[in-house]
């Protein structure tokens, strides 16, 4: 029973982390109808910000996530203005342009920061574990905190989209750009902000991650891919869908990894995603 609970919780933490990483991607997809292929590299860039703040100025990831989020907000805006904007509405062009961007960011990091793995030591949460039932179930604090952040960020995002004037404008733009424009929405500003906010969301994850994961130029690749699955499985720009899909993917990974075989865990993740998408072509919450 303890073991089952442990596997369940491990899956839940991973799932919520994936949800936090995927939230921004989902938002951007929902509003602009594009996939930001450089999403995983955004994560990596944000992790470097947090790592260097911790390494050089001893700022804890619990604080420096703010800086990572701000940095990725800017990176998002710049990406929109210089990489994405001109390609909008041209089929696969935005995806390929952001793929080019992902190569640039990854290899720039490789060139400037070397491929060394960088681990931040001496962080507040480092190695802290909550032990339940005489060690039958262990809850690692950094993962738990990240999971809580995930719920808060996703909640805020959902609240913003459904309960604020800005959110209504965003939704109107997502549904029909022309109509929104006629109604007086500054759609260009919406696009910029959405890209920035999408970046900032992954920035929160990126800021927290160095407290338990090594930073290196390749760290974003698999996270990025999983984020794509989360978003597509959840459905077109749906925040609750993304959350549900993320938790599902985390659990599949954890259970398949433990009860079938660890090498099988990503096969299961991608395989189940394919099954879901066959049954519901537009994802769980898609319309």
């Amino acid at each position, binding site marked *: 029973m303890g073991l089952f609970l442990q596997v369940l919780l491990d899956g839940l933490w991973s799932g919520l982390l994936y949800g936090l990483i995927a939230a921004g991607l989902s938002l951007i*997809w929902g509003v602009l*109808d*594009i*996939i930001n292929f450089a999403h995983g590299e955004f994560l990596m860039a944000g992790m470097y910000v947090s790592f260097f703040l911790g390494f050089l100025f001893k700022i804890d990831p619990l604080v420096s996530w703010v800086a990572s989020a701000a940095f990725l907000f800017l990176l998002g805006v710049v990406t929109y203005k210089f*990489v994405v904007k*001109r*390609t909008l509405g*041209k*089929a*696969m*062009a*935005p*995806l*390929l*342009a952001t*793929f*080019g*961007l*992902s*190569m*640039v960011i*990854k*290899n*720039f990091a*490789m*060139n400037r920061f070397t*491929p060394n793995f960088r681990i931040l030591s001496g962080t507040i949460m480092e190695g802290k574990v909550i032990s339940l039932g005489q060690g039958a179930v262990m809850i690692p604090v950094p993962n738990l905190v990240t999971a809580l952040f995930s719920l808060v960020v996703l909640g805020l995002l959902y609240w913003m989209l459904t309960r604020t004037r800005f959110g209504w404008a965003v939704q109107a733009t997502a549904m029909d750009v022309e109509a929104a424009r006629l109604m007086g929405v500054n759609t260009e500003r919406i696009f910029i902000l959405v890209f920035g906010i999408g970046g900032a969301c992954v920035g929160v994850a990126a800021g927290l991650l160095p407290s338990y994961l090594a930073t290196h130029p390749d760290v974003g690749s698999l996270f990025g*891919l999983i984020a*794509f*699955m989360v*978003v*597509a499985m959840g459905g077109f720009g749906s925040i609750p869908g993304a959350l549900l899909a993320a938790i599902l993917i985390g659990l599949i990974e954890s259970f398949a990894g433990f009860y079938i075989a660890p*090498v*099988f865990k*990503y*096969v299961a993740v*991608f*395989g189940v*995603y*394919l099954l879901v*998408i*066959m049954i519901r*072509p*537009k*994802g769980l919450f898609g319309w």
Partner: protein
Amino acid sequence: MQSDSIKRAIPWMLSLAVLALLPVTGLLRGSFLSHVLVMILLNASMAQAWNIIGGYAGQVSFGHSVFFGIGAYGAAYAVTNLKMTPYPGALAGAVLAAVLAVIIGYPTFKLKGHYFAIATFAIVEVFHRLFMIWEDVGGAVGLDYPILKDGWRNFSWSRSKVGYFYGALILFGIIFSLVRALEKARFGYYLKAIREGQETAESLGVDARRYKLAAMALSAAMAAMCGAFFAQYNYRVDPSMVLSLDMSMRFVLITILGGIGTLWGPLLGAAILIPLQEYTRAYLAKLGPGVDLVIFGLIIILVMQFQPKGIMGMIDAARKRRRKLAAAGNEHEGGRQ
């Protein structure tokens, strides 16, 4: 009619013949140059294979490394485990890839836009990871060729690249001739019609799904042949080499850079990207790691900004501009309506 199509084929046949004479001229003496030429021909063929489904039928698949990989594994398995020549393996690989293409295509073709793209990513990941743990084909270690006698029998040449050059040229000739024929055939018109509007095409009585599946199968079989060549060329295959997202992206990027849905786009794309990739890796190493890939990424971004139809698009635009200028010149002042 008959003689017309023969007449049109003459320049194409001539250019193939000219290419075939290249090794005789001694221009290929430097092995690196011939390596680059072989790679251009191979990558152009890969991109053209993808172009059938991605360009003409408009289904942008990021899953072609799966078919490529199956072809590569087919040839390698025949050589290493069955101790045969690679040909039956390559053929089996091509057939298998075509069958798999139909199995994959049947459910995924109903997915729209990004959903289709992401589903093909996931398929690559599933196959990659399955091959990683499938011990009969070497698992993560892959299959390594023993040292074989040079020649066509083993499709292996270690001392000179001329054999590979002709092998690649044959592959290139077959795939490009096929697509050339496709452009003029009814099948090709149907595919284009489906790309421009599936509903419209269907209302005219075109069974869109059947044609798309046929195109996918054809495209997959051709990609598998390219994969078999790749395994023969490298004397080795492992999952990361052939069954990866990077490899899938290569099919797409070359075609898009050159010009998607055009006959010569894949060749142009390969002729630009491959030398860039090979020479920057070889000669930009001094600037530190990764600079070549940064440049590569920047080129992709730039092309996407200004001409998503690739180089063929640029050529077309330039041609149109010239024609327009000429027309304006002819009609003097009153040319513009």
